[in-house]
């Protein structure tokens, strides 16, 4: 009997590992730049921004990814934030979300007092099969949000098929069970037509720090860097030549601090 149960468990794990890989149709239904977007459902993503001043682009990228996770049977998109963080990084603003291309009536904002409540709500939300994606916007590091917490999230999201985006700030990386870790930084935008001095559509420099989008390593592997524009059609790879001939020199992309590398758990999540 024990042997049977163990075999069953092993098979279950294998199936779960297969299910979290991107499907062929997913990767092929999107064009080359969208290959970046073809993340599978049911994963935990960490989206890091270097500082609180970059909060807009981090949330933008997380919501852009989350929007893809919604489908007819899974209409729920939930954004979580601590009440005390609202003045630090700003509340998600309905009119802004609308102009970003999201339906504000479908987005539910959860504002909790403590990080424990936030993690509870996160787990509760991701366990619901009608929720497509959950975006947790956490301004500061908390000791409750540790490897155990992210591992729990990873297991829950793998079980239910919903995706979790943990938007976090700073250069320090902790051990986490997230399958993907992104680093998002804003970049100087292209000018809109007819107005050289006005800001254009959002442009982000995105680095995939952990995880790989394709088993065959065709699209994106860890460490690859992208420059993308957010347009009404979704993410589009930016044409870099446009900005190169400008007088403005792009600031050097700051290297990660010499914080301890997050060795533990870096590859653990891939077991499913």
């Amino acid at each position, binding site marked *: 009997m024990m042997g049977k149960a163990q075999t069953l468990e092993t098979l279950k794990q294998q199936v779960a590992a297969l299910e979290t890989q991107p499907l062929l149709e997913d990767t092929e239904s999107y064009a080359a730049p969208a290959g970046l977007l073809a993340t599978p459902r049911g994963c935990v993503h960490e989206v890091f921004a270097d500082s609180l001043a970059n909060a807009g682009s981090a949330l933008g990228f997380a919501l852009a990814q989350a929007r893809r996770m919604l489908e007819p049977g899974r209409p729920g998109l939930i954004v979580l934030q601590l009440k005390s963080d609202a003045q630090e990084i700003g509340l998600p603003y309905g009119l802004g979300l609308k102009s970003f291309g999201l339906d*504000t009536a479908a987005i539910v904002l959860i504002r909790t007092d403590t990080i424990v409540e936030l993690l509870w709500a996160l787990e509760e939300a991701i366990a619901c099969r009608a929720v497509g994606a959950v975006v947790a916007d956490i301004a500061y590091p908390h000791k409750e949000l540790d490897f155990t917490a992210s591992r729990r999230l990873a297991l829950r999201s793998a079980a239910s098929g919903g995706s979790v985006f943990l938007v976090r700030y700073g250069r320090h990386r902790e051990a986490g069970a997230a399958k993907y870790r992104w680093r998002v*930084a*804003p970049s100087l935008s292209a000018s809109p037509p007819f107005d050289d001095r006005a800001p254009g559509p*959002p442009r982000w420099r995105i680095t995939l720090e952990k995880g790989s989008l394709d088993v065959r390593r065709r699209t994106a592997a860890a460490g690859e860097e992208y420059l993308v524009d957010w347009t009404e059609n979704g993410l589009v790879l930016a044409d870099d030549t446009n900005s190169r001939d400008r007088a403005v020199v792009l600031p050097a992309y700051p290297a990660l601090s010499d914080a301890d590398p997050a060795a533990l758990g870096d590859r653990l999540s891939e077991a499913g």
Partner: protein
Amino acid sequence: MLTLPRWATDCLKRADPALAASLQRSQSAPSLPPFGGRGWGGGPHAPNAQADPLPIPPPEEGEGDPSAGSAPDYRPFVLWEKQKGAMRLVAADAAASAFGLAPGQSLSDARAMVPDLEAREIDRLYLEQVFADFADWHSNASPIVSVLTHEEAYGDLCLDITGASHLFGGEAAMLEQLTTRLRALGYTVNGAVASTVGAAWAVARLLPGRIIAPGDESKALQAMPVSALRLEQTQIEGLNQLGLKRIGQLYERDRKSLQARFGLSFLLRLDQALGWVEERLDPRLPIAEWYAEHRFAEPIGLIDDVLMCTHDLAVQLAARLEREGVGAQGFHLFLYRVDHKVMTLSVNASRATRDAHHIGRLFAYRAERLGAEYDAGFGVDMIRLAAGSISPLIATQTGAFGLDDGAQGLDHLYDRMTSRLGPLAVVRSKPVNSYIPERAMKLEPVVAATPDDPVASMPVAVPRPMRLLPHPEPITVIAEVPDAPPASMTWRRVNYRFVKASGPERLGDEWHHAGSKLQLTVGSAEAAQADDTQELYFEEGRTTRDYYVVEDDGGRRFWLFRLGLFGIAAEPRWFLQGFFS
């Protein structure tokens, strides 16, 4: 009908152990002063009643009060109130009454008569509130509980026991049970059962413990003084002057002349007492049509037990709701504590439901939020689960080929989160008909959703930030020329140099808000005090805002505004209000 003539003093003694202790005389130290004498005086008309030579039995002293007759072993306690400049007694406890103190006396007289009198000023509001809680607790005996307030706002409790008395083994047993329990707690209480409110009120005061059969009201009231009719003092005095002292004398009188003399209200009271005119009770709690309840032989205390019982009740209630084809959106849990307090827990569902498992879970989460606030006191001896906001709910068949749009799952999720985190924590943004950015969107609880305002819609093309600071933060800005877009800013002590900007988008004041205060303050209270925009009012030109979308050399996009126009405002100030993605 229950009347508690000494509620004011009894309640204070029970609520304040220090008071009860101070009242005890040193030579005897019983843990609780033996109250519970079946005294019936204490109302303002008590002297009148005593003056009448009637075949009504005198107040039975000494039955439940071993100390009656002799000097009581605790200090007398009275409450006083300032009436027309004089300090007069308004309530006296049994010991004080034994010394001959009665309401209406002046406090100095009373002090002279009884030197070691304990006197306090009356707090009517407090007494009323405590009595209201006390009344609510009695809804465990009958669903319709009402406080009669025509004399005092506390002290008279009326229960409609129609269809409820058999649960207690008959009317007499029910009356006995209710009054015994209160007496054991130290309240002076009298009760009576009658088929009209007026008769019950009179009998409870003058012939406590009686049960008047339907139709016997006129006989029972015949020998009673007219003051038992809930009349005004002037009406009673007028009747006494005419020699009409007993209610029986009024039966055969000409009604027209009585009405001419004493007004319609007099006839109404008489007819109400005799059951010729219907009198409605004003129930304190809304009457729950759908409820399930459970009484315990022994009180329970643990929240887990309460929740387990709640789940059982939810199953019962759900079965009833299902049989009738309805669902409910509000669920209320009443926990009746042994010490006459009711705890209420309410949860709301965003759509009508009768899923017992879901209801049970909502209460479990609600209880989690309760945390340390949960206090069962000496235990809970009855639990009632009531359903409100009933609407028809047709049973649907779940089929293999049905499409699940996830709406129900989401609603259940939001219900659970609301019950755990509170309704203000689970919100959705909703447009409001305003151009002022911080007003253009409001956060609305998901469980209390209201229909959308069709007028409130902003064109999507207007650039709006993805994040908005709840309070705009003041920044220092350098602009090349006064009306040009800013060239750099300092925000939170960091300097940002802008390379691109668009704007301005000028937002004027809303004229219909002229005169209302601007609220531009940064989070903390100290900052709010330091900020002088607190006293800034909407005013043409001075509080007009020019919004700019700016991008710094790192590609971060901010939303800034300048408050006030150059030339009109003395010193325009700059604020940062949002971040673009």
